[in-house]
């Protein structure tokens, strides 16, 4: 099993959710986060005083999938989240040791 962590622009969230749903990815967790990559922040001006805002609002989307679905999920995700400009975000993939459904103790991919 793999965990997909995608940090994306907040405004592509709906498109990404639709894309994942359409290929049958059911479990998704989303959190609003702040951060920056190489893009760094932007400038804001309040009554003439300039501030550099380094931490930009992003959405972090997490889902755990069967290893066999990796390419398909990544393709759907990147296609939906890509605008082509700086700040589109990143995807991180890691191994998951175990998954357990709390309701009935199902284990492994059956629990996803």
């Amino acid at each position: 099993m793999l965990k997909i962590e995608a940090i994306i622009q907040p405004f592509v969230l709906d498109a990404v959710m639709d894309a994942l749903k359409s290929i049958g990815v059911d479990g998704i967790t989303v959190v609003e986060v702040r951060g920056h990559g190489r893009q760094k922040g932007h400038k804001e001006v309040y009554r003439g005083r300039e501030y550099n805002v380094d931490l930009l609002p992003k959405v972090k989307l997490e889902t755990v999938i069967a290893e066999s679905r990796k390419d398909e999920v990544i393709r759907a995700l990147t296609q939906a989240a890509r605008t082509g400009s700086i700040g589109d975000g990143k995807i991180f993939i890691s191994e998951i040791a175990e998954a357990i459904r709390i309701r009935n103790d199902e284990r492994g991919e059956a629990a996803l």
Partner: protein
Amino acid sequence: MFHRTAILLLSLCLSVSAQPASGIEAELAALKSAVRSSQSAGDNAWMLISAALVLMMTGPGLALFYCGLVRKKNVLGTMMQSFAMMAVVTLVWAVCGYSLVFARGNPFLGGFDYLFLHGVGAEPNPVYAPTIPHQTFMVYQMMFAIITPALIAGAFAERIRFGAMLLFSMLWMFLVYFPVAHMVWGEGGFLSAYLGGRFPVFDFAGGTVVHITSGFSALITALYLGKREGYPHEKMVPHSLVLSFIGACLLWVGWFGFNAGSALAASPLATSAFVATHFASAAGAVSWMIADKIRNGKASALGAISGAVAGLATVTQGAGFVQPFSAILIGLIAGAVCFLMVSVVKEKFAYDDSLDVFGVHGVGGLAGCTLTGVFATRAVNSALKLANGQAAPLGWIDGNPMQVVNQLIGAFIGISVAVAGTFLALKLTGLVTPLRIGKREESAGMDLTLHGEEGYNFEA
């Protein structure tokens, strides 16, 4: 025979005409009193609404405007500063404030006739407002006394202790507000235009009494208390311009009570002041947006609302004296001048007038005081009469350039009392209790350390 008949006829006529004559007189008297009471009813309705509108400017208007401009951790503390004035100043006003401003006294401070509101009831006070109950006048003026110290709080935002703020504000009322308000508006006041002042200053709704005093006092408090920890290198951005937006719009609406209500009657003069107020606010917003666009490349939302408030503060003094297009000009000047103050001059001198009370109210008030001397005209306000009964020329455009000098004298006295009184009030407060919150409290925020609460409680 003829002679006797004539006398008889004459006496008959007299007796016949005498009978209805007393009836007509009684009717006339009844009519007069009906007219008086219906005018009083109309005026009183408008003045009570105006009083409520002016209170709405402090809470929630100013409370929202200010609290949106501070950081999250200080949102409640900032709102409390405005709200506390609504409570505390009310009590002081009832006990002695009203008397010290409006009772007959010396040219610099009122007397004690109205102490504990003695004699302030349903009967009108003919000196100030002959058509409304004295109590209406008292409560209307109270709302002005409430907002003035609440305005100052923007200058020492995010760093003053609550108790110290209360004590300072009360002392400030006695040392600055009561004397200046009496001088400008009180019977026999030194600067009174209508009630026997030495230098007649036209201040329709408190450009000098409210905005110059609060603005210049704000500057003194900002200098005296020093900068916030981390200012200016640390990021201190407004935590919610949405709240500030709502606050600014409430201020705009409330200002109709402030300025148009200052006609003290539901009169054509109130309409004129209403229009001038609205026009100046609009022009202030436009001119700040243009200045913003030129200097920063974008017309910001905070800029637009700041410009509207600057226009309102600036037109306050002349609202009941100037024509609509003078008001537009005043608003345009206000937006540009206040923009320069807060975004250029403040940066140069690097004082931390956190929410720009001086830049907007002090400078706007001073500009408005001066411009009233230029644009005041008898075409709008003919209350001031010459010896021959004709309306006196008011401002420069009316052919009375000396009025600009009178206005500047008024501003100078207002500023002097504000600076000296504020300094003294700060010193006295400092003897009783420390003014600033500690460094650790400041970084934790006023909400938690001063009030034991949080404005935004995400666990709830």
